[in-house]
């Protein structure tokens, strides 16, 4: 793997942004804008985020805009999706958020019917914010509800109650959002089969278009990691049961399980996230944001100040950059496609990578016998297989 750090000046875009590659044939890119601010960091979160001040928020917005301007000079294709995530994007303030969305629309050619998502947390979501987002072109929001049980929310270190979440959801509907996603978490400290069933039914009663459902993972260097011995965390076997409950319940309620952790009503799968999984191009902006553009993966420094400084003065902001060799693209393809229930067609794999598919097929057949994989012209994992996807995929790559 060729990992190298390059000293690049921001004005020298073409050195990072390259033309579309074989695996990304004429796919329209998505943009990701990272807002690295939080009021309080959740106990389980190891994303990069810091506390925000008005001043910092303003400086940061300007840096992002400068960065977007620069990229716009290089990216000539249309943009299909925009995703503003965090952190807590609302921490930027209504004005700055609207400005950002406006800038994106001004600088880039948006495709017809783009998907423009903003992540929101219940406690920092109000009517004014939702209205101005709507006005700025945002047509999809993702609310981090996580659980319908307040005690569980507390243990996660979240700042909202389920009541707050319900309120935020209802306002969003009132304001006119027709595509709302909510996050649900399983494997929370103290969570039981009953409390999970309760959260599921409460969330279903909100009738969102899209549900992301993540298992809690104890990441190193988080408060939860430090108290993991004492925490009453459901073990892997319990999490597996929870996961199956989630899949079953949401399936019955009419949601398609289109990715390991994502469920959507027909037509509402996240187009932005699908880009990650289908190896389509995306450009990330902001500290710690990742891009895959022109066969090249790169990310920016995980520091707001270094990022702002770099953009302002043309210093180095690349944290990591890799021209992904074809062989690894093949591995990425398997790894990401097998997260999707649509899976992949062997013919596409062979066409893209000119690789022998037989050894992989032999393994997949074994997994099929064990009820972990399925084949109907395309290979994909079953629910049981999703749960074991690391073991399965690592044996294939």
């Amino acid at each position: 793997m060729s990992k190298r750090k390059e000293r690049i000046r921001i004005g020298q875009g073409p050195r990072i942004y390259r033309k579309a590659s074989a695996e990304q044939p004429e796919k329209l890119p998505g943009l990701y804008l990272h807002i690295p601010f939080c009021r309080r960091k959740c106990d389980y979160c190891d994303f990069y985020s810091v506390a925000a001040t008005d001043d910092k928020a303003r400086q940061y917005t300007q840096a992002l805009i400068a960065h977007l301007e620069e990229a716009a000079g290089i990216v000539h294709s249309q943009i299909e999706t925009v995703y503003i995530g965090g952190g807590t994007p609302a921490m930027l303030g209504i004005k700055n958020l609207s400005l950002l969305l406006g800038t994106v629309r001004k600088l880039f050619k948006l495709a017809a019917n783009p998907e423009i998502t903003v992540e929101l947390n219940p406690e920092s979501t109000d009517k004014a914010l939702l209205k101005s987002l709507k006005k700025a072109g945002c047509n999809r929001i993702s609310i981090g509800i996580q659980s319908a049980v307040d005690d569980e929310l507390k243990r996660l270190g979240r700042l909202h109650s389920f009541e707050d979440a319900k309120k935020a959801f209802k306002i969003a509907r009132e304001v006119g959002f027709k595509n709302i996603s909510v996050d649900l978490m399983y494997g929370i400290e103290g969570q039981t089969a009953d409390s999970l069933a309760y959260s599921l039914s409460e969330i279903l009663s909100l009738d969102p278009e899209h549900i992301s459902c993540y298992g809690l993972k104890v990441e190193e260097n988080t408060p939860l990691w430090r108290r993991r011995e004492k925490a009453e965390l459901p073990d892997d076997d319990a999490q597996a049961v929870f996961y199956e409950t989630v899949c079953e319940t949401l399936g019955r309620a009419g949601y398609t399980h289109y990715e390991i952790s994502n469920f959507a009503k027909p037509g509402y799968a996240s187009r932005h996230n699908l880009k990650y999984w289908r190896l389509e191009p995306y450009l990330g902006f902001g500290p710690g944001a990742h891009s895959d553009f022109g066969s090249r993966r790169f990310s920016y420094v995980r520091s707001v100040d270094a990022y702002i400084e770099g953009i302002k003065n043309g210093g180095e902001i690349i944290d990591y950059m890799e021209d992904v060799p074809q062989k690894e693209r093949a591995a990425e393809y398997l790894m990401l496609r097998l997260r999707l229930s649509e899976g992949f067609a062997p013919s596409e794999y062979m066409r893209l990578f000119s690789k022998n598919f037989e050894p992989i097929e032999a393994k997949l057949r074994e997994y099929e016998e064990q009820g972990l994989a399925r084949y109907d012209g395309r290979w994909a994992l079953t629910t049981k297989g999703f749960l074991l996807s690391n073991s399965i995929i690592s044996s294939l790559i």
Partner: protein
Amino acid sequence: MTSATLDLVSVRQPSEPDEGSGSEGSWAERLAHEAYRQAPEVYIRIDFPEYDNFGRPQFAIDCGCLLLHMSIIWMCVGYSQMTSVSTFSKIFSICYNYFIKPQSGGGRSLQDISKIRNFSIIAHIDHGKSTLADRLLELCHAVDEREKEDRILDNMDLERERGITIKARAVKLNYKAADGEDYILNLIDTPGHVDFNYEVSRSLAACEGALLVVDAAQGIEAQTLANTYLAIDAGLEVLPVINKIDLASADPERTAREIEDIIGIPAEDAPRISAKNGINVESVLEYIVNNIPAPKGDPGAPLKALIFDSQYDSYKGVIVYIRVFDGVLREGDLVRMMATGAEYEVVEVGYLKPLGMEKSGELAPGEVGYFTASIKNVQDTRVGDTVTHVENPTPQALPGYRKVQPMVFSGIYPSDGAKYPDLRDALEKLRLNDASLTFEPENSVALGYGFRCGFLGLLHMEVIQERLEREFNLDLITTAPSVVYKVRYTDGHEEMIDNPLKFPDATVLDSAAEPFVSAKILVPSGYTGNIMELCQERRGIFKDMKYIDTDRVELHYELPLNEIIYDFFDALKSRTRGYASLDYELLDYRESDLVKLDVLLNGEVVDALSFIVHRDKAYARGRKITEKLKENIPRQLFEIPIQAAIGSRIIARETVKALRKDVLAKCYGGDITRKKKLLEKQKEGKKRMRSLGSVDVPQEAFMAVLKLDD
């Protein structure tokens, strides 16, 4: 002894030697000339530390410290291969002519035999043998302070850590006694472990006396007792020395009584010393001179010398450590090893000094020293063999020689199959120095290609394994140690079996016999019950129990060796808080109800885990091994039954449940690289496991079943 420092002479070989003029030789000659001009008597070190771009060695000769009364050529090679032997021999001969020859001639008269004392030190681990040896060396000014790096007699790291001297060494000391006479004291070190009983007996056979060092606080231990009896049987004068008298818990009088009661030798005059703090150590030297008899021997008789150790040196070949009984051994002599029949021309003869060797040109009766003869292989210089002249040989070899037979066998495999050739090279190198190590290739379905290795005992096995891992940087998997079984087939023929895989099927097995040992265990009387229970569990046959004094007991058991090699030492230690000591010797083979226990993973036999066990123990062992495996085999995509079986009968079963969840739920904002790395790491982890059929087994699982602690 005087010493002085000389300006360092270091001359580099010209990088492009002029062609044709024998440039390397002439360069070396110039260098040697220069060195000789500066210091006519000098100790030279030749290093071959680097190679030039063409792979030729870059010579550098350092003429370092000046030791006026001796000249040693000490050569080190930075790398094992040498590009040009002729270049090397040229340099060697030049150095020899300049430095050695002028001094080695000159008609030295034979050493006065009445002024020689040859002795060993017998002591239990930690009773202070090495410390006492250091003190004696100091008192005889055998080493100067600068060179005194903690313990001199123990050369190997491993020995130092374990506090056990594994390979015998010897040193010649000069001592001016109270009577005004100069004496030569040859201290012959002995290995201190039951595995090396035979080597100890040969070292003792080279001596006239032995110091019995006993810790004044701990008293006599089983090992000491065994070696003391060996010394007494060999007719040695055994002189007790009571050490560590400075300890608060020391009771020298009681220790003296114990020596008298148990061993039956007078101990009231035994020097009471503290080797560590240098208390009364001089008296030991006088004690040696006055009480150990001088050797006897006839310089005119045919040569008769005992090999008590040998060591491989990459320049000189095997260095053979000997004690001369009759005749004189000189450089240039043609000699024969009487048991192996090997014949050689002696190249070099000399004495053994703490930090190397001192050429003497000859060894006379009573003397202890070494010779070299370009011997390639220690297999030719067996411990206990007799060296004699090819012309005029002695009619009678020295008694006591026997070819050592390995008692414990184990399969050794590289954990990375590609390292098989490295393992073979490493074993071959170790065998150069260790005639008792045997090995032959074997292969296992589970572990791939490896070697079936034979060892003198468990410690020997551990030492070899550790040396392979440390000195040769190998990562090993070893199979459970096995003893050699004698099996009789139904057709009447018999076979010795050292590998469980070769154990015959019940249908063709008539009977099987296993080796029994006679074991003596010394234990504080409070623990007697524990030990009797342990021996009972290990199928021991109680023979005898003696009270050594009011609170120490000697237990005598007959035990199957098979039970001793299976974590007996650990059990002994843990049940007596480390106070018990054990000694054993091979007794005989006895018929026994033995079965082969197989381990099955997912229905398939894992050959590397099979072992032979007494039928009564099979169930417990089977249960334990399946439990251990369950703990060590990670959950996989499917359920894995782990079974222990005798033939087709399953006697124990555990199950590794199928893995339920192994998934990266979240796609971190498009951070695919991180995810990819995690999966690659997982893949690497899997590669390090052994794939047995469809089951991935980590190496730790193999190791864990070898250590089934109670």
